[in-house]
């Protein structure tokens, strides 16, 4: 019976080899796929099982993990959720993650590839893996000023430090409290998410960088003016036609100025004056003269039609596409005054002001300043990065002077700050015939040594409704934010 016994022993060996192979296949080859399966709740449990690093603004944690006595081990808490909700984002068992919580997840949970050496050390010493802290560029005073100035109006504010690209404020209203989504009571978290989805004003939409893009309205005239001056044919003093009405080329439509006014009794004015009083007909005609291509080149030099990561993903702003109906002369006339097919994010508008404030050099905007290990060693420090040259220094200085004129004695007087020279541009963007226009303001201060560039949008004119203009509604908010930065 020994021959069959030996064969049985061989069969047993084969069976065990099969088990070893199948187990290895699952735990090694298939593991990644299984770990990433959306039905696998272990992934989120694993995230929760670790101490997650805090998100820090000016030395204070706006998001932190505190040990709790439940199976997850740590509860994510947001100290001022409404204020920072659209910056920190949320970290939720049932709803996933967003914004900084998502983009910096690998650091916050300590699993980033760059940290392998630390993890290796922790494995050897048996230390619990810990998350890294992420410090933001946000200025709490500017953030709070923006949030409070917007109040219960729908809109967004973005403030940037022109020389570096640091984002000082990023507010979108209505906001939401990420604590409601981060609760470990999965039923409540799910319900809170549904409520936010259905809520009036769509609080989950981050209007500052994503959401629906907006027509920029007259704030886009800065781009048209920049294109004109960069072309070398015009200076701020050049006189351009400014008729009471402008017959759109190849079209029966007629463009009026805001309120039907005449821009000047002579029917023509300087480029600087046209910007100061935001003359539609002058800029529409200028835009058509310059042509679709020149405008597009200038818009792209300010960052249009290019996505961004700050590190949250930013929707690309849009200038009419070449060779389509969008770029026909009548649409170009509209585009030149920021109507028609031009779409922007508030961040894009702030980046235009920021580039002009920085002598024409646009810095890449960013929100994450420093990543620190649990022992507070800096593992990553942001360094300002040149994104592109938007305009020449001379054009930048010419535009700055023109924008100072807007605030000094133009449409943007509400943004004046005593003792500080402010540059700016208002915008009042028509978007639907049955709704009040969006109120815009963008600018920077101090004009001769810019510390902050800002963009503000108040949807549908906010509290002012149909009476709203960028100068009346948005400019005061911008002023509050700039003051907060300058006094800070």
């Amino acid at each position, binding site marked *: *019976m*020994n*021959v*069959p*016994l*030996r*064969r*049985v*022993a061989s069969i*047993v*060996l084969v*069976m*065990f080899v*099969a*088990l*070893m192979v*199948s*187990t*290895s*296949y*699952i*735990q*090694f080859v*298939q*593991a*990644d*796929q*299984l*770990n990433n*399966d959306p*039905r*696998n*709740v*272990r992934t989120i*449990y*694993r995230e929760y*099982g670790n101490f997650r690093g805090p998100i820090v603004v000016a030395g204070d944690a706006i998001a932190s993990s505190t040990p709790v006595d439940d*199976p997850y081990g740590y509860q994510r808490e947001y100290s001022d959720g409404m204020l920072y909700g659209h910056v920190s984002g949320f970290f939720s068992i049932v709803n996933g993650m967003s914004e900084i919580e998502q983009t910096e997840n690998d650091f916050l949970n300590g699993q980033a590839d760059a940290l392998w050496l630390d993890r290796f050390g922790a494995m050897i010493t048996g230390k619990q893996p810990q998350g890294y802290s992420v410090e933001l560029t946000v200025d709490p005073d500017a953030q709070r000023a923006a949030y409070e100035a917007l109040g219960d109006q729908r809109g967004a504010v973005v403030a940037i430090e022109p020389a570096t690209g640091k984002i000082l404020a990023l507010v979108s209203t209505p906001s939401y409290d990420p604590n409601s989504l981060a609760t470990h009571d999965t039923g409540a978290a799910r319900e809170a998410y549904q409520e936010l989805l259905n809520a009036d004003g769509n609080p989950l939409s981050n209007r500052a960088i994503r959401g629906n893009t907006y027509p920029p309205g007259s704030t886009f005239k800065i781009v048209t003016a920049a294109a004109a001056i960069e072309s070398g044919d015009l200076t701020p003093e050049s006189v351009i036609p400014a008729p009471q009405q402008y017959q759109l080329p190849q079209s029966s439509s007629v463009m009026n100025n805001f309120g039907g006014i005449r821009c000047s009794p002579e029917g023509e004015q300087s480029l600087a004056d046209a910007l100061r009083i935001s003359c539609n007909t002058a800029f529409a005609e200028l835009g058509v003269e310059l042509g679709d291509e020149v405008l597009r080149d200038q818009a792209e030099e300010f960052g249009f039609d290019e996505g961004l990561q700050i590190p949250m993903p930013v929707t690309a702003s849009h200038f009419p596409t070449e060779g389509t109906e969008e770029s026909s002369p009548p649409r170009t006339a509209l585009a030149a005054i920021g109507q028609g097919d031009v779409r922007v994010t508030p961040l894009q508008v702030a980046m235009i002001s920021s580039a002009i404030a920085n002598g024409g050099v646009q810095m890449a905007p960013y929100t994450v300043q420093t990543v620190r290990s649990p022992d507070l060693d800096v593992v990553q420090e942001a360094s300002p990065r040149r994104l592109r040259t938007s305009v020449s220094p001379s054009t930048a200085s010419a535009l700055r002077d023109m924008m100072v004129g807007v605030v000094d004695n133009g449409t943007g007087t509400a943004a004046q700050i005593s003792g500080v020279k402010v540059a700016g541009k208002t915008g009042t963007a028509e978007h639907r015939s049955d709704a009040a226009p969006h109120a815009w303001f963008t600018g920077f201060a101090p004009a001769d040594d810019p510390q902050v560039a800002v963009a503000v949008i108040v949807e549908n004119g906010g509290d002012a409704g149909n009476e709203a203009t960028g100068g009346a509604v948005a400019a005061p908010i911008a002023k509050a934010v700039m003051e907060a930065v300058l006094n800070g």
Partner: protein
Amino acid sequence: MAPVEPEVRPGRTAELGLLVLALALGIGAYAIVGITVTDELPENFALHAGGLAALSLGAHVLLRFKAPYADPVILPIATALNGIGLSMIYRLDLSRLERGGTEVLATRQAQWTALGIVAACVVVWLLRDHRILRRYTYTAMIVGLGLVLMPLLPFIGVTINGARIWVNVAGMSLQPAEFAKIAFAVFFAGYLVTNRDTLALAGKKVLGLQLPRVRDLGPLIIVWIASLGILVFERDLGTSLLFFGLFVAMLYIATERISWVVIGLAMFAGGAALAASTFGHVQARIDVWLAPLEPEIYGRDPGGSGQLVGGLFGLANGGLVGTGWGEGYPRLVPYAFSDFIYTSLGEELGLTGLLAILLMYLLLVERGLRTALAVRDGFGKLVAGGLAFVMAWQVFVVIGGITRIIPLTGLTMPFVAQGGSSLLANWLIVGLLLRISDNARRPSSLPVRGQVAPGGARAAAPTPVVAGTATGAVPDDAPTTVGGSPTPGYGESLPLRAADPPPPPPSPSHDAATEVVRVDDVDRDPHGSDENDGRREP
């Protein structure tokens, strides 16, 4: 002619060393679980750890006195597996308590462990010679059938999760099938050792397969019907498959006829196909096996793949080195402490841990098979071979089901999974294997073959072992047969696996090398000469 008496080391010291390692593994795991989950040692840690150590060391001491030549690897491996299983069950208790549950399984399992080790000791102590069991061949058959049918009885039979394989006796749930496998192994061994030649030789040859005669098949058909009955009436695919594996393997070992394997597999395939087409739950299992990740099959209720996929997620989470004791989420899988304890271990100990556990099982089984090779009587070979194989087969069916080699069936992982009947039954198997291996490895007190002049041996040689058993009806046991040729000694290491050093060369009058290599034939010779020779080489 010089006596051939290769030195056999009983191996008790090696066993002690391995046992200390095994205890360190099990008790260490228990301590780590407590410290990781609750920041302190488990309650009554010293008592539990000391209890396990005392019991297994007690078993070791008993072996020193009662079975000094027993295989030294079997007891440590069983202890290590049992300790690892207990730790995981305790770990899952803790996560249940943490979440407000009250059920505690580890205490019960620890009691069963104690009972199991004691039972193994009792087997070693009281069963002086395994051949005594042969007297109870048909008793074993009846006991086995009775155990298998027990859950179908009214009042005591219980249906849990759709399978009627439990009985409630005195407040305890038992799975009689676990014990039936031992009874059947004994029955098959006794039956086959008597009838193996009729089964192997009488009958027509069809297409190169030697078919057995129908009238020889009687008892086997009864058992076949019984195991299909389990499938149909108790709805337990796993146990049915288990008996079939045992049944086919032992037939093959006894008769050396592939035809039996083919017939056995065909019979089971036929029965299983019939069951699959008749019973929805079998078809559902097959769907789950083939495509567990399909959303439709994953979400199906009942009969969905949620448990299997949960187990796969657990294994994936464990990865190469695992999360460590107490750091994973094995509780997410239903029956993580019994049917799916493999994935629980895989999650926390990783691939490395599972490969180590698989190697332990492999070693344990191969030790059993080695015992079967070495033991001199046919009955012992069949019992040891059958029990060793059934353990391997059970491991294969459970883990193969979890890792999707075969459809999932509900069986327990020997020694590791929660379940008193299984634990006790497997310790009984350990007891039997220890007893048989002691016989197999014990240096013969008889004159070694070749030592006594041919022809004078049978009458002259005292046969204390056989005499002790007082079984007259065992002609084929024939440990005393004296062949014409000098052979290696009885305690000779058989070169199954390279676990032991090669045997010292027998002192030769013949060509030594040839003799060693042909141990197999030599070993079979006396057997053949005793019964029906002529089927071997002319």
